[in-house]
């Protein structure tokens, strides 16, 4: 009879994932209810969501929804709805799927996102989000608020800090007028404190992956990050992150990795190909390749604690990974490679996301120079599977593995 070990799959499923599903289900129900009450904001992934939450609004994340569109493998179809409206195939596929599903919710997964009353965009991740939300505004009639965060090259000049802070104050005024409400300091403190707790727990789970074998793989983190992206500030998500951390620590105690037989540890850069996330990472897991760290899920870190929460928000939300220069990206990648003891790196050049992918060829060389480990750039897209060629990607990754072996 075959032993348990050989029957065991190359990839280990997280037990906490059922709690994750329940948490995400609650997020959808709450958004639906908020929309029905006329209190739903759509927000971008790097938006200081603590403010609308503290003002009792519900939130939905179109980027997260469009990742779902990708993972349900209907990216080309839903992006196509936007293309039919005249949007170019060169436009970010999150934006295309977002606009497409807003135009044709009934033909989109889950019937599209619940209808928004306001659209809150922060350009700390890219400038596309503003145009995307303007397009949604035309379709839904909801007004757009832009929080403008000038890119940070080295140190953030004080006038930029003041400018972003003024933006936050304007946001509070805007929401106050739209929803006839005001921001209460206690409530903001409470939301910020929940947000910080969730981020702390999340960061601990991420950092646990420094262990060999790594308790989490890339796909695990990309799914587990959903609540911290979309519901940081809500108390109930702490239960999930405690369960996740428990499970991660339990795995470490038992010497159990996310994959059965860890041989090669790699860094992942950029958004994943959602339509192929399991196939891709589990396929590599079968060959002993694990990804203990990535630049994406590490983007939601940083505590909001401190005397003046708005000033902390200025810091955190101005300094997100995508709002900083190439130097900071190279530092981040090299730092992760060293701290997580990685043997190489894979940079996914995402056709959609110019902001993330621009400069990857240069940073690849710089990261290898700094760390001495090899890397490879593969090309494709996160939602639009028409731009993803499996055989070409496989050859590049196989060659990287051969270089490391």
């Amino acid at each position, binding site marked *: 009879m075959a032993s348990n070990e050989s029957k065991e799959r190359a990839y280990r499923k997280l037990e906490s994932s059922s709690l994750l599903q329940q948490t995400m289900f609650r997020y959808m129900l709450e958004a639906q209810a908020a929309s029905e009450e006329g209190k739903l904001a759509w927000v971008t992934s790097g938006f200081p969501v603590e403010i609308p939450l503290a003002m009792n609004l519900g939130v939905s994340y179109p980027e997260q929804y469009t990742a779902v569109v990708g993972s349900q493998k209907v990216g080309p179809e839903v992006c196509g709805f936007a293309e039919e409206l005249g949007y170019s195939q060169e436009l970010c596929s999150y934006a295309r799927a977002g606009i497409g599903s807003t135009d044709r919710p009934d033909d989109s997964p889950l019937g599209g996102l619940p209808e928004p009353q306001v659209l809150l965009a922060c350009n700390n991740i890219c400038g596309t989000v503003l145009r995307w939300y303007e397009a949604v505004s035309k379709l839904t009639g909801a007004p757009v608020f832009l929080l403008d965060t000038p890119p940070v090259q080295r140190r953030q000049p004080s006038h930029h800090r003041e400018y972003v802070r003024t933006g936050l104050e304007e946001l509070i005024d805007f929401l106050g007028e739209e929803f006839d409400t005001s921001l209460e300091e206690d409530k903001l403190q409470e939301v910020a404190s929940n947000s910080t707790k969730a981020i702390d727990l999340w960061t601990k789970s991420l950092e646990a992956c420094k262990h060999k074998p790594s308790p989490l793989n890339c796909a695990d983190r990309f799914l587990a990050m959903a609540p911290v992206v979309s519901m940081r500030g809500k108390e109930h998500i702490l239960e999930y992150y405690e369960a996740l951390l428990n499970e991660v620590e339990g795995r470490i105690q038992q010497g159990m990795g996310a994959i059965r037989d860890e041989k090669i540890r790699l860094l992942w850069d950029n958004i994943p190909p959602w339509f192929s996330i399991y196939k891709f990472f589990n396929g590599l897991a079968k060959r002993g390749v694990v990804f203990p760290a990535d630049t994406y899920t590490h983007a939601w870190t940083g505590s909001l604690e401190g005397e003046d929460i708005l000033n902390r928000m200025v810091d955190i939300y101005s300094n997100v990974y995508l709002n900083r220069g190439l130097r900071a990206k190279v530092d981040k990648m090299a730092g992760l490679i060293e701290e997580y003891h990685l043997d190489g790196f894979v940079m996914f050049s995402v056709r959609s996301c110019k902001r993330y992918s621009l400069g990857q060829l240069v940073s690849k060389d710089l990261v290898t120079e700094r760390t001495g480990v090899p890397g490879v750039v593969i*090309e494709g897209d996160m939602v639009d599977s028409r731009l993803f060629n499996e055989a070409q990607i496989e050859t590049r990754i196989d060659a990287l593995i051969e*270089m490391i072996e």
Partner: protein
Amino acid sequence: MREKVGIGIDVGSTTTKGVVINSAGQILASSIRPTGASANDAAKAVLDEIEEAHGEATEQPVVSTGYGRKLISIADREVTEITCHSLGVHHIFPDVQLVIDVGGQDSKAIRVGSEGRPTDFELNDKCSAGTGRFLEVMARVLDVPIEGLGPLALQSQNPCSISSTCTVFAESEVISQISSGESPEDIAAGIHQSMAGKIASMSKRVGIAAPVVATGGVALNQAFVEYLGKSLGEDISVPQEAQFTGALGAALLSIQ
């Protein structure tokens, strides 16, 4: 006692190549044929031919490489063309630093490290410009056989400039140059120059370091190698076995 041999099969998009080597790494037999519609059939035919040429069937594991490496049933192990070309060329030129392989449908630049292992690479397998396919299309437009395109270019003193890097656009550019009376020699030279420029810029991404060796079917085209050398500012060596270095690298892995 039967001598130990190594067998490597390189299933390219245009041609399939196979070699049998002895333990000293000398090629005992080789074969090449069009890949055609079935990579598997082509690989089997190549294996039969090299075994026949070698004079005996062998039980040595077969290592496959090339774009079709996973499509063939006779392989015991598959290794990418990046590693195999690097090992194969290093076996012939132990000092090699940079391998530029230009095949029918793709091209690659590989930096070779110690023991012939690749340390970095760039691969163009998305666009037909910069591959043998580009030359085939251009030969058809100029109405010369593909083997004649290189020699024609070598007669030119004054290559035309072909600015489009896209095969489709370059095709219309060449057509308009023909109609404006440019000589076929100068157009052919311009075609090679343009392709060499594209491959040189891909190679620069991994860093130019001499000695540089060119392989693949297109490396047999002297005009291309000359223009590539000019674009890179380096002399380029081409091994006699230019089309077999991938299969040779695979055979070296098979014997190890």
